[in-house]
């Protein structure tokens, strides 16, 4: 699914964020990405979503060399991904339904199909019946579940989550992680960046640890 080959990323004004990172993630695998703040976790995820480009090395996603992906292909790469953020990145002036429907609308799903899929996604994250509410009326944990529903509504091949539980208390965090586990069980590849070591050890999955941009442990 995902292969990093001696990947380096240097920001023009901040120096090296990733140095010589190599690893492989199989189809349907679930893994955590950890490391101190500023270790390069977000940068690594951004390379996969082609939000940033690597400066050296090779990066393969689903058999495609991302270095060679042109501007026009980026949207189609992102449609195979479900992105989840620490700050949820929801549109607060849109209903829950509209937020979750966005990836489907963007990909040109038919108007008949959209409500069905949105409800299925909301059902999975336990928010069925809240479609008409606005995000700010929900608690942090609920907002993150809306973010997850949006990330999975179009059935992506891989989920990328950047500190998905960073703003949540431990109990809610565990709930969210269990949710990711469910997606892994239906064959979705999952990569979660988090610095919450306790939570990660509790889950017991493969863990990639970054240290100052280098892969320190796998």
């Amino acid at each position, binding site marked *: 699914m995902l292969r990093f080959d001696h990947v380096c990323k240097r920001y023009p004004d901040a120096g090296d964020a990733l140095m010589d990172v190599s690893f492989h993630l199989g189809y349907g695998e679930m893994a955590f990405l950890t490391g101190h703040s500023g270790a390069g976790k977000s940068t690594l995820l951004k390379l996969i*979503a082609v*939000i940033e480009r690597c400066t050296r090395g090779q990066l393969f996603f689903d058999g495609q060399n991302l270095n060679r992906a042109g*501007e*026009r292909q980026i*949207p*189609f*790469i*992102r*449609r195979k*991904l479900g*992105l989840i953020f620490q700050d949820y*990145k929801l*549109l607060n002036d849109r209903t829950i339904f509209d937020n979750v429907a*966005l*990836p489907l*609308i*963007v*990909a*040109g*799903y*038919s*108007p008949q199909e959209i409500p069905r899929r949105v409800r299925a996604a909301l059902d999975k994250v336990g928010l069925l019946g809240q479609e008409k509410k606005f995000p700010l009326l929900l608690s942090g944990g609920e907002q993150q579940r809306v973010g997850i529903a*949006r990330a999975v509504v*179009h059935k992506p091949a891989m989920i990328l989550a950047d500190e998905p539980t960073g703003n949540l208390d431990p109990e809610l965090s565990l709930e969210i992680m269990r949710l990711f586990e469910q997606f892994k069980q239906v064959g979705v590849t999952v990569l979660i960046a988090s610095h919450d070591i306790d939570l990660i050890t509790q889950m017991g999955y493969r863990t990639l640890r970054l240290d100052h941009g280098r892969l320190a442990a796998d």
Partner: protein
Amino acid sequence: MKTTSQQRNRQEHRKARRFDRGIAVKLLAYLDSHGQAFFSSLGRLLRMPFTSLMAIAVLAIAIALAGGFYIIVANMQQLTGSLESSNQISLFLKSNVSQQQGRTLADKLAARADIRRVKLISKQQALEEFKKYSGFGDALKALQQNPLPHVIQVLPENILFETPEIKQLLEELQQLPEVDFAQMDMQWVKRLQAIMQLARRGVMLLSFLLGLAVLFITGNTIRLELQSRRDEVVIAKLVGATHAFIQRPFLYSGFWYGFFAGVIAWLVVLCMVLLLEQPVERIASLYDGYFQVLFFGVGETLLLLLISAVLGVLGAWLVLNYQLRQLQPQ
């Protein structure tokens, strides 16, 4: 053997149908997204009436300026075109030609198909008029002989400006044995024509500049709209929206801005024409001409709206092409 081939046939048929339906669904979804962008951009425009009204008002003024000058020049052109005397030819007869001979010639000319009207001014008449209007009455009395020739004024059938036929007619008349020389009263018409041409050029140049203004104003308005919706744009990009998808609603916004500005500009020019109609008609009646104030015809109206809308879309497109690339998720 037969049944399997039939089965295969049927299967292929079904597959083709499913394929057709797949395309139809995709096409419907595509059209639906266009329809949505079309109406949602209109809705957004109506939801923030103040900002959009301001922008539309400025656009409308620019378009109305160009349209107004166009109408003024069109009317002036009509006015100059309605001046019949423009192609009038004066034939000065030789001094040995009698008035009777002049009359015969005038009648002969009047019968020609390419001549609309002729008028003989005898030398006595001419002298009387000259005495009356020139102020040289007393001096002229001293003359023993009338120095003026008989004159025939010829108004050609073709009263358009300077066609080859008119030149030919002029030459023909010049060749007549009774005619001393033929003259065309065209100097001032030519001058007027030149002024009109200048005015037309001026309108073109002005319209071009105002068109650029419309382009930049819409561009800037769309830029502000884009800024206020940057979260939406960034998130749409993150979930895999294409450039075309993101820019579509903004292009429609540009369309609406241009279109509404065009409609308002049309109304503004209409008001202007209505206000000017009476005074212009009074002037026209003074000049003894039939003159109806011109306004945009159906074709010109459609063209005005089309150009306005296209400029709106183009202004939006120019800005989006640049700004959307700048707007990347972080």
